[in-house]
Each structure stands twice: as C-alpha cells, then as structure tokens.
C-alpha cells in the first residue's frame, strides 16, 4: 500500500488516531466519550496489526525482516525499518500495553482527556519507531521523540510533585541524549553510514569503541535506568498517572536495554568486555541497594519503582555476561518485566482510583472486600519475586546462570536479590491485602469491575503462560542471540586471544 510496509503501518495508525482525536469538538462530555473510544479503537487496531506482523515474522531466522527502506536525508541516512528477534517481541509488548493503558485512563483522567490520548498515541508511534528503526538517526529521533509526550503526560496529568519530577526526568534523559547524539555523529563520520546492518559489519577501532561506548552508555544507562542514575525514575513513577507509569516501566525503560543490545553489544563488543566489570558492579548495586530501599518505602508506587530498578539491574547483568543464557535471560526478563511491572502499576492504580492515596499505611485487609484483586495481586507479586511457574522466574534465573558462567562472584551478589525481593514484595502484600479490614474508609471499597478485569486478566494469563511455556518468546530471541554471539566472538578473538573470558573450573 503506497509502497509502505506493515511496520510503517504500525507507525502511521496511531498518528492517524491522534489526528482524528484532534478534530473532535463539541461539548466536553461528548468529546471525552468519543476520544476514549477512538483512542481505544486505534490502539486495538495497532495491536491487531502488530499481530499480523508477528504472523509474517519468521522466528527461526536471525535476519532483519519486514524490512522497508525509504529515501530520506541522504543516500546513507535512509528511513529504514525492520525487525529482528530482539525487537519484534518489544513491538508486541508495546502494542499490547497501549490498549490496557487507555483502559487504565478511562475514568482516572478527568481533564483534557482529548489531549491526553493524543499524547499517548503519539508516544506509541515513537516507541514503536525506536524498536523498528534500522537507521541510527531515525532511531535517535524516535528515542528522543518519546521524551516529549512523556514529559507532557507527567507534567500535565501527574500528581502534586509533577513539576519537580518532570524536571528531573528531562534533566537526566537529556544528559544522556546529548552524549548519544555525539556518538551517532561520531559513528557516521567513522563508518560513513548510519545504516544499522552496515554498522554491524563495521569494526570500530578499539580506542574509539571506548569513547563511543561511554557516550551511548550514558543515554541507555539513564533510560534503563542504571544505578546511580535511577533517581529520576522514582519521582517520575510516583507522580505520573497510572497509564504513564505503565508505559514508563513497561516500555520506556526497555529502550535502554534495547540500546545496549542493538548498539553497545553488537557494534562495540571490545568496549563491552572492557567495561563489563563496571556494569556488573553497578548492576549489583542496583539489585541490592534498590531492593533494600524498596523494602522501607511507604508509598506503594515508589516501592514498585524501586523494584523496577532492581530488575533492570538483572537485565544489564545478563546482557553484559555476553553468554547465551545471560542475553536470552535478560531479554526474557525485559518482556516479563514489561508485563509484571505494568500489572503492578495497574494494580496500584486500581487502589488509587478508589482511595486517592498511595500510602501503604492507608490500606490493609483488602482481601476481605476485594478477593479478585487479591488473587491478581498475588500472581503479580509472585511474578515479581521470580517464583518458578511465572514469567519472572525464567528471565531472572537465566540471567543469573549467565552471570555465574561469566563471573561466579557477580552471581553470588546478584542472588541476594531473590531474598530481598521476597522481603519487600511479601511485606507490602501483607500490609495492603492481608490483615484486618479496620480502616473505616475501606469499608465500602469495591472489587475489580469489568473494565479492570479486562485490563488485568490478560496480564495474569500471560504471566503464568510464559512462566510455564516461555518457548514462543524465548525461541524468538534464540537465532538473533546466536548471531550476536557469533559476531561478538569473532570480534573479540580477532583482536585479542590472551584474555580468557570465562573462569573455567580448574
């Protein structure tokens, strides 16, 4: 259609929806109702379209698929799109979460609903754009583009401390972005192209890899976020509206991990090996410090945000082990965390919609009035602590297997995370859901309604399904991981043969 492929379609559909929303006018109630349904329809159509893309995708191949390339700035900077085993699941995650986000905003958002949904639809295009672009400049533009709608969503529809939060959010991400732009330009000058498949073939000299790695690391480490660049996330999560938190935790953080794999590991393997100890140290700090900090939180959302930081620690840990188990585990954890943390934020949102507070102390004994909610929350909590049989387990476990292979001591410290996650997650569950329902304000609290069940139900099902049968996702990464391993090994062995990457038992 018009020479555009299905990936372009994924980018265009949300924009069309946004454009349609902008044309709506009339009295406020009508506009609100119409924009809700229009936004929902747009996101559902996008999701279905992404399923079509998925059905056309060959999971046994490591090649870029569904590729389309349109002339753009120059001959070497083209508008090129395509997906591989790493990006396809993220596209699906994004399109899956969007209708759920629209659902989460159905009643919670009262003001400027139309503009709110426009921001979300634009954001969807940007996020999908990050994952499908095969040109570094395009990727950079989308990567930065996500900032603006997110900035607006937190800054306009957030709660009390939103101004400070947006400032911090912008400050941190901008700091990273500037350096990333430098990296992109430097790569172009060195390789003469920003085409990602071509850059993959290009061997950057070792000293240049170091600087490039640092520049990109700044951007991705902020986004992920890596300790100690994580503090923006806590405020942004706390202040954002529910759907904003869901997208932030579910997709935006994943862009950091995506950057690591698409650029750092693929193009700069020498620097990755060089900096792996640093990354491990930061990851361990993230896992341990964030987990203990999570334990002591009084605000549920902040607790979940801290737990996200800890889980992202596992992701980077897995990626930089440069082993199959580590990379696949980290990638699975990205998807799983996208489902689990989104689900947790939605669950917090369910409570916030009813009671308008996020204080843990304001709740207690909810299971009495909200048994369905208690069940869903139990599943999410258990997935968050990585119980086998939930999707949370597979990723964390494989990432740690990889870590143990790469460096047993790193794994030793990382495994503390499984104790600490149990501490904070069960403690908050006990305080919020169990106990006696004593607070007068909670006497008449309602259990999940149909809309909320439609939001949470699919997540419960997917979390358990992928815990028992992770094949559909895990096997999608496998060919891409293999290809990545081969190219990394070739690059590493070419330049240096002396260093033994693995501490082989003697």
């Amino acid at each position, binding site marked *: 259609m018009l020479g555009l492929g299905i990936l372009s379609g994924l980018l265009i559909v949300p924009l069309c929806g946004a454009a349609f929303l902008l044309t709506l006018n009339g009295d406020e109630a009508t506009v609100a109702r119409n924009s809700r349904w229009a936004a929902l329809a747009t996101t559902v159509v996008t999701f279905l379209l992404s399923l079509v893309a998925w059905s056309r995708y060959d999971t046994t191949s490591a090649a870029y698929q569904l590729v389309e390339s349109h002339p753009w700035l120059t001959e070497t900077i083209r508008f090129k799109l395509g997906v591989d085993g790493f990006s396809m699941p993220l596209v699906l995650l994004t399109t899956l979460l969007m209708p759920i986000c629209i659902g989460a905003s159905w009643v919670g958002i009262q003001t400027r609903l139309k503009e709110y949904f426009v921001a979300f639809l634009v954001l969807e295009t940007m996020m999908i754009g990050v994952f499908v672009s095969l040109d570094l400049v395009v990727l950079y533009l989308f990567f930065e583009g996500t900032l603006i709608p997110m900035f607006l969503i937190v800054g306009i529809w957030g709660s009390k401390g939103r101004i400070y939060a947006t400032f911090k959010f912008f400050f*941190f991400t901008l700091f990273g972005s500037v350096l990333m732009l*430098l990296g992109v330009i430097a790569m172009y000058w060195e390789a*003469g192209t920003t085409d990602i498949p071509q850059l993959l073939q290009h061997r950057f000299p070792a000293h240049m890899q170091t600087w490039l790695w640092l520049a990109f690391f700044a951007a991705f480490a902020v986004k992920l976020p890596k300790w100690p660049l994580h503090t923006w996330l806590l405020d942004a999560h706390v202040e954002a509206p529910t759907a904003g938190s869901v997208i932030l935790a579910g997709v935006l953080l994943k862009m950091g991990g995506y950057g690591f794999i698409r650029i750092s590991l693929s193009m700069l393997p020498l620097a990755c090996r060089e900096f792996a100890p640093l990354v491990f140290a930061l990851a361990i700090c993230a896992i341990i410090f964030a987990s203990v900090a999570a334990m*002591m939180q009084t605000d549920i959302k902040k607790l979940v945000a801290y737990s996200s930081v800890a889980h992202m620690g596992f992701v980077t840990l897995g990626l930089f082990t440069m082993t199959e188990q580590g990379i696949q585990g980290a990638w699975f954890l990205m998807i799983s965390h996208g489902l689990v943390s989104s689900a947790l934020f939605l669950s917090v949102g369910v409570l916030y919609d009813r009671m308008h507070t996020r204080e843990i102390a304001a709740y207690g004994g909810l299971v009495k009035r909200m048994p369905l909610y208690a069940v869903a929350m139990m599943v999410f909590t258990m997935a968050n602590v990585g119980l086998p049989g939930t999707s949370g387990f597979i990723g964390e476990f494989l990432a740690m297997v990889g870590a143990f292979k790469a460096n047993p001591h790193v*794994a030793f410290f990382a495994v503390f995370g499984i104790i600490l996650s149990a501490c904070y997650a069960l403690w908050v569950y006990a305080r919020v859901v169990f106990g006696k329902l004593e607070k007068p304000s909670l006497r008449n609290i309602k259990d999940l309604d149909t809309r909320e069940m439609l939001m949470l139900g699919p997540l419960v099902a997917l979390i358990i399904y992928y815990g028992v049968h992770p094949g559909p996702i895990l096997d999608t990464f496998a060919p891409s*991981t293999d290809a990545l391993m081969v190219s990394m090994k070739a690059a590493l062995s070419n330049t240096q043969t002396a260093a033994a990457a693995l501490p082989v038992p003697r």
Partner: protein
Amino acid sequence: MYHAIVFFPLIGALIAGLFGRLIGTKACEYITTSLLAFTALIAWGVFLDGGHAERVQVAHWFSAGDFTVDWAFKVDTLTRVMLVVVTTVSTLVHLYSIGYMEEDPHRPRFFAYLSLFTFAMLMLVTADNLVQMFFGWEGVGLASYLLIGFWYEKPSANAAAMKAFIVNRVGDFGFSLGIFLVFVLFGSVAFDGIFPKVDEVSKLTFHFLGYDWNAMTLACLLLFMGAMGKSAQFLLHTWLPDAMEGPTPVSALIHAATMVTAGVFMVARLSPLFEVAPNALIVVTVIGGITSFFAATIGLVQNDIKRVIAYSTCSQLGYMFVGLGVGAYATGVFHLFTHAFFKALLFLGAGSVIHAMHHEQDMRNMGGLRPYIPFTCAMMAIGSLALIGFPFTAGYYSKDAIIEAAYASTRPGHTLAFLCTVIAAFFTSFYSWRLFFLTFEGPARWGAHAAHAHQDAHHAVPAVAHSVAAHAADGPPGHTEGVAHDDRGHDLEPAHKSDVVADDHHGHGHHGDHTPHESPLVMTLPLAVLAFGALFAGLIFKDRFIGEGMEAFWGHALAHGPENHIMHEMHHVPALVAYSPLVMLTLGFVLAWWMYIKRPELPSALAAQQPVLYRFLLNKWYFDEIYDRIIVRPTKDFGIFCWRTLDIKIIDGYGPNAIASRVLDVARGAVRFQTGYLYHYAFVMLIGVAGLISWYMMSGLPKGTH
C-alpha cells in the same frame, strides 16, 4: 499413569480455586479429596509393583544455548516412596480437614491450597532435573506461605507466613547457586546428564569467594543450604515453629510429613553427588546431629501443643540428615517414610485435641482429657510410642538404624552425631510423655477450672507469637516465679485463656464452659489409618528399605561409593549401642512420669531453680532475637540509608538538584524575562552542540575525514 498422579491434584486445585463459589463448598471438598484418594491408590499400586527407573517426558520447558530444561518425571524407587508418602498423607489430611475446617467460611480456598501444595510437592519429587525440582521447591513454598497465612486476619499468621517464605528463600539462595555451579561443571541440569559424569568432575576445583574449593564439595554444600532451609535445620529452622500459626491439618501435611522432608529427599536424590563429596557429608552429619539435639532441648519446655510437635519434627529431620550424612541414605529415607505416618498422626491427633478444646493450644489449659476423648488419646499414645521408638513400632526400626549407623560410621563427625542422637532420644521420650501427661492426665485445667483467668483475657498475647524480645529479656516487676515468659506464669500455672489463639475467625462463640468432645468420624478415620502405619510401617517395610531386600528394592536410586559399606557395618554394633535408644526412652518416660504425674510441683520448682537455662530453652535459644538484632534491623536501617541518604541526599543532592540550581542561576543571569522548561531544553542543547564542536575540534578527527 504418572501424569495422573501429578496432575490430578492440580485439577482439583483449579476446580476448587476457580469454581469454588460456583459449585459450592461441599463439592469442592469431595472433588479434591476423591481426586487425591484416587491419586494415592495409583501411587500405592506403582509403589508395590516396583519396577525399573524410568523417565517420562511431559513437555519442553525452556532452553537458552546449551541450558535446556524439560518438564519430565524421573521415577525410581526413591520417587515411588515419596509418591506414596505425599499422596497418602495428603489424602488423609484432605479427609480430616472436611471435619476440622467445618466452621470455616473459606473452605474452597483451603482445599484449593491443599491440592495445589500436593501438586507442587509431587512435581518436586518426580523432578527429572534440578530446575524442575526448584519449581516444586518454590511451589511448595508458595503453598506453605498461603496456608500458614490462611487466617489472614491474624497478624501473627501473616508474619509467620512471610517468615517461612523468606527464610526458605535464604536457603534457595544456596540452592540457586548450587544449580548454577552444577550447570557450569556438568553442562546439564538433568539428573541423567549429571550422574554419569560425576567421576570426571569430582576432581575439579573451583575458585569461589577466595578459596579453591573441591568443585563437588562446593556444589553439594550450596545445594545443602537449600535443604537446610526447607527442612528447617539448625540456623535456618526459625520458620518452622512459627509456621504452626496455620491450621493444624496444614501443619500435619506440610510441616511434618511432606514439605519439610524435601531437603532429605534432595540429598538422597543427589546421593551420587554427595557420595563423592565426603566433606559436604560431614557438614550434613554435623548439622543434622546438632539439629536433632538442639530442637529436642527446646521441645522440652514448650507449652503450645503444636510447638512441641514442631520442634520434635525439627529434631527428627536432624536424625534423617545424620542418616544421610554418614552415607546410610536408606536409613534416612526410611525414617522419612515412617516419620510421615507417626508425625502426621501426632499432628492430626493434636488437631483433634485442639478441636475438642475449641481451639485451645496451650497445654497448661488442658489436662485430664483422657475420659472425654479416649480415641484421640489412644491415637496420640500410638503416635508417641512410634516417635520415641518403642520396640516394634515404626520409629523403632528407622530411628535405631540411624543411631546405629551413626555409631558404625568412620567419617569425621559421626561421634558427635551419635551422641547428639542418643541424647535427643532421651529428650524425645521426655517431651513426648510430658505432652501426653499434660494433655490427657492429671487434673483438668480448663473450663470452669480455669475460669478465673478470663478477666485477664484482654492482656493476653498470642501464645504462639512470643518472639518479641522485650518480653523475654526480663520478667515484669513483681513476678515471683523467677521466670518470665510473655506475661504468663511459669510452666504449670494455668495460663490466661487466650482469645487470640481461639481464632476469632471461627466465631465459635463458646469460650465459656464446655465439655471436650470426640471428633467426628471423618477426622478419626484418618487417625486410625495413620495409627496403623505408625505401628506397622516399620515391621512391614524394614526388609525392603534397610534389610535383606534392600538392593533389589532400591535399584540404583541411592548411590553408594565403593568404600561405603555402612549399610552392612551398622548391623554389627556393640549391644550397648543397639540398646541405648531403648534405655533412653525408658529413662525419658520415667522422668516425665516422675515430674508430671508423681510430683507435679517439680517442674515449676526446677524452672525457678534454673531460671537462666529455662528461659534460654523457652525462648528457643534466642535465635529470633539474635537474627532480629544482627540481620533484620541492620537490613532495615540499610534500606533507610539507601533511600534517604544515598538516593535523596547524595545522588539527588549533588546531582540534578545541585546542577539545576546552578543552571537556574546562569539562566536567571542570562535572560531575566524568559523562564520555562522548553527554554532550558534549548539551553542544554546549545551546551551539547558546543560540546560536540569542541570534541570534534580537539579530537582532530584522526581518520575518516572527508
């Protein structure tokens, strides 16, 4: 067939859990119980048939690189033994619960949890690889968490549930690392991929935490850490007594007969690994010996009927590990098998007593119950006899075998283990009879006899939640007994009637005078079945498990190295050793009779005379307090530090906030009439471009210039 055994309980759990409200409580009870009964029948059939080891592939779970994990069953004699134990006890507990939980409004949920637990336990024992075992391992942890916290309105139950899960996670810390190490060493996590390669790997060393370990020793120690958590061994035992907060059938099923034996099962399953790691086996022996002794000492003075049995379980698990540790794996598993019968019997019997007493668990409020509940009394007597190892009961064969094996062993640590187990045998006999006499004999201390205590009911703290250090440290002023314990009197004074224990969830409404009543048939029938097992399981199965038919029975399920002849040597120990358990049990009985029947004032006098020792035992060697001081509180403080100091003061304070104020200063100075964040954006962009240009100029673009 094996599919049916494993998945029927899951089906039951799903039906009761998802459709409980739809189909009604009674239907849930009958469906789950009959599915379990069917499962148990198949399991017994499989067990008695015997047969070779086999592997049943169910599905592929996940793989990454060469790390491949399947859903599969490995069925050999060890698994068949466990299948029988798990399904039998679970069926009886399901049946019993129909009566015990009769007044509870949440029965569908309860039965769903029970069946879910059974499913997870079956997954554990049929696991064909370590990761699936870990799945079952954590699965039973989840079910245990849900069941301990079943009465979710009780704060003490919630705390106990969390504690159980978290302490088990500490064990799982080691288990996970053990799995990783095994994978790195063997390149596989499936048992069939590990065991054949043991010999080549056993000589390797592995550098970890500053030491060069023998790889197998390290792997076994790490895995054993998991076993210590699950089986409540010394240092990781603290959750088990608290787990008694759960309904009593749960205690019988999970915290006596099945889940806590998972650690024993794991070591037995991995016996080929442990067999080449003698140093790890020494640790197993010593930990087992210490646990058997130390838990028994605590059991001597506890007043809560379930806690006495809980510590007894802990102690008996120690015996099993001693058996495993000295290389006599069969004795450990045999004791696991017999213990399941008599310990489940004791717990369900205690449940029957508690039921009769309307949820009173404090033995100081019992006494003289024999005429009222004669059947329960008889069952408890049988359970106690089996537990102390009275000749020809089940415990006699398995426990004596362990003591003899501990003596006959030549490995380091065996003497300690032998002494510990023999002394523990004496303690076991004492606390078992103490429990029996306090509950069934002597004067009645309940109902009208203790009514005067009611006025203090609102002061009463939960009898089972006395881990609070403050109470234990020193008695409140005015206490004359010399021993303080949770504002209660000393040993034999009638305790306050505690409303908290009599769980208000049930809303009995009859806390006043009542006459204890015998339990209904649905509860006594399981007791009778278990009593049969407690009496005869040893006699019937001893030849197969540890006697003549041993080799044919076990096949290759348990490994024995070429130098390991313990199973033969244990039959040739001096007569004194062979009779020592008998002597100990007689002494224990006589002493208990002397102290609780003949001279009932003695215990209080003794407690007053030895306040330090008594308090030390009553407060469980102060483990909870020590852990709270050295682990829990520092961790919490560290959490506060990470959050308030590290993140807010340091990172934010010197990072964005500081820079922001500088940027704002500059901005104000530069442009007074422009504010707003878009402006800052542009400003920082400018800085970026400037930085880019300077970088470009300074680096001088060494190559690639156009």
